[in-house]
């Protein structure tokens, strides 16, 4: 069975299915109850599971920190953080405990927790509603960092995340929540750590995830070359092999992300390509990213977030080098 859903619907159906399937799943966060979350991703869930869907006080350290305890008792906490940057309020609990519980105790206590949150720009929201700190999260050993880019992938990835024995930071691109529908198959898992080749080509490789994947797919329509587009889907663990194999074929690569350029994931990917496909590289790895400025308020946001034009220019630069 399958259903045509938007991404936000895919999140909801996944949560519904997992609540149904596994009595230990708890869905909680600010406004996830009656109101169904600010994006309605949890709408209706509390009606069917009033004992396992909870509105929390406005306190992200509390949300993340109680998850550590819930998990220890055998529950499977699936927390919603209202916007990515508010996870910073619970950053210490994430880095000091969620990520490390397994390693601190040699596997005798674990933290199978999923922390979902919208990230990135594009919906003209308030300040600090458009961040994407995936590089920071990926730099914390013990975490897994996952990015869906379509409704069907959301279902597969979120299902895997919830069932995974280790913590997952699950970053949902705000502006794809309602941007399109597609068939979403029932009960399927997409393994964490496996990239997807979204488009095949042999002139240049573009690596992009989340909402930037959609922008990239738009951008390549105007590029007169065979572009291979890779969606890593999880940034940690990162499927280096798929990226490296592609670059060995194309010799050129562009990495796209919304986060600021410096110390963003494009650097990491560049490094891995360097290490494993150095002799195949015909051009420097191009970075098309946000700038090293705080994401501006929405009047200037469109000028900050990479768009199809900027991605297209990046691809051209990669193609024209040398």
């Amino acid at each position: 069975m399958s259903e045509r859903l938007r991404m936000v619907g895919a999140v909801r159906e996944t949560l519904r299915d997992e609540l149904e399937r596994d009595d230990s799943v708890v869905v909680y966060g600010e406004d996830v109850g009656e109101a169904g979350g600010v994006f309605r991703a949890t709408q209706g869930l509390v009606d069917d599971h009033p004992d396992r869907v909870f509105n929390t006080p406005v306190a992200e350290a509390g949300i993340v920190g109680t998850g550590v305890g819930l998990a220890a008792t055998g529950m499977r906490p699936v927390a919603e953080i209202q916007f990515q940057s508010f996870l910073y309020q619970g950053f210490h609990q994430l880095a000091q405990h969620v990520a490390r519980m397994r390693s601190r105790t040699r596997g005798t206590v674990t933290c199978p927790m999923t922390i979902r949150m919208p990230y990135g720009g594009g919906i003209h929201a308030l300040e600090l509603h458009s961040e994407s700190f995936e590089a920071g999260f990926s730099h914390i050993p013990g975490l897994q960092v996952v990015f869906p880019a379509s409704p069907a992938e959301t279902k597969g990835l979120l299902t895997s995340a919830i069932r995974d024995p280790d913590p997952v930071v699950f970053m949902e691109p705000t502006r794809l929540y309602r941007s399109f529908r597609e068939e979403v198959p029932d009960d399927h898992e997409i393994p964490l750590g496996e990239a997807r080749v979204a488009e095949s080509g042999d002139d240049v490789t573009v690596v992009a995830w989340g909402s930037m994947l959609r922008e990239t797919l738009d951008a390549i329509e105007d590029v007169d070359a065979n572009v291979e587009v890779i969606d890593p889907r999880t940034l940690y663990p990162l499927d280096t092999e798929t990226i490296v194999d592609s670059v060995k074929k194309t010799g050129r690569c562009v990495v796209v992300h919304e986060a600021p350029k410096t110390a963003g994931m494009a650097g990491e990917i560049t490094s891995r390509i360097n290490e494993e496909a150095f002799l195949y590289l015909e051009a420097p790895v191009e970075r098309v990213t946000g700038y090293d400025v705080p994401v501006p308020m929405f009047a200037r946001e469109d000028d900050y977030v990479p768009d199809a034009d900027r991605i297209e220019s990046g691809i051209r630069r990669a193609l024209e080098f040398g």
Partner: protein
Amino acid sequence: MPDENVAQFTIRSVQVLAEDETVDEELVPDLDDDELLELYEQMKRSRRLDERAIALQRRGELGTYAPAIGQEAAQVGSAFAMAEDDWLVPSFREQPALLTRGTELHSILEYALGMEEGAEIPDGEGGLPPAIPVGSQPLHATGVGWGEALQDRPNVAVTYFGDGATSQGDVYEAMNFAGVYDAQTVFVCQNNRYAISTGIENQTEAETLAQKAIAAGIDGIQVDGNDVLGVYRVAREAMEKARNGEPVLIEALTYRRSMHTTSDDPSAYREGDEEAEWEARDPILRFQVYLEDRGILDDETEDAIDDRIESELAEAIERARADREALDPADMFRHVYAEMPSELERQYEAFEGDGGGGK
């Protein structure tokens, strides 16, 4: 010992002008007619701004906007009690307080247009921009109140936040630091009974929010937040204490009569009945009757106020639109550091090279 009481605490609650228009004459603050009219006008100005802003947002002209409808007395009453050089440290729903402190209407609109221009603090004025992360700004207010004390200045920092914010550890830390450093800070918690969809009963088991002060060893007091005279009175006293290094938490009991923000639909989580109940307790209405009863407000004055507000608003909207038109996107590079680092300069050049807008 062996089983004895070692500490005792009481939370007081104050009301001057009740819902039914009875007045405790002993407690009425010493304000002249002009001042009373100013309280009234600021509340109306904020109400009209919110109404216009919602309408503009509905037409796609503004971004997400958080109206303060119903909370005007809680803010205007307290902000009016501030001295000229005191600091306003607001959250995102503080139109009434901002206007009372002199922030111009077009600035508020520009903020709602997604422009940092709307968060500028005019030279020489004490204040911080609206804080979006819930509960994060009280710590800044503690820092300000501490800094003023360190510099032997008499100024007080007044920070506003909601019932939801009291769940954030930061707010507790802010009060605790304030207690330790005798910070010249007043914490105004507007208990408007909702944090987006989450009712106060889900936010805490504490029966009052004023009692959160007890944990920090500072004073906490409750006031009817829809009673502008009560709020003024309590705020004034709190500020005098704070000026002497005794920080105070005020819980103003009020109600968010409208949506959380323009992206919110309250019908998903609360009944119309409840809203109707609070409409009757509206702070502006209550004060209007008070002023009329005492002959301070007549139709003529009322009309003059309305006209003034409408024309100010019309002007502000025009100004904001023009500023929005003239906005330079490249400004985002210009205010990150005092001097632009070379990597940023290169990004800026690339941006400009792409024709601005990254195109």
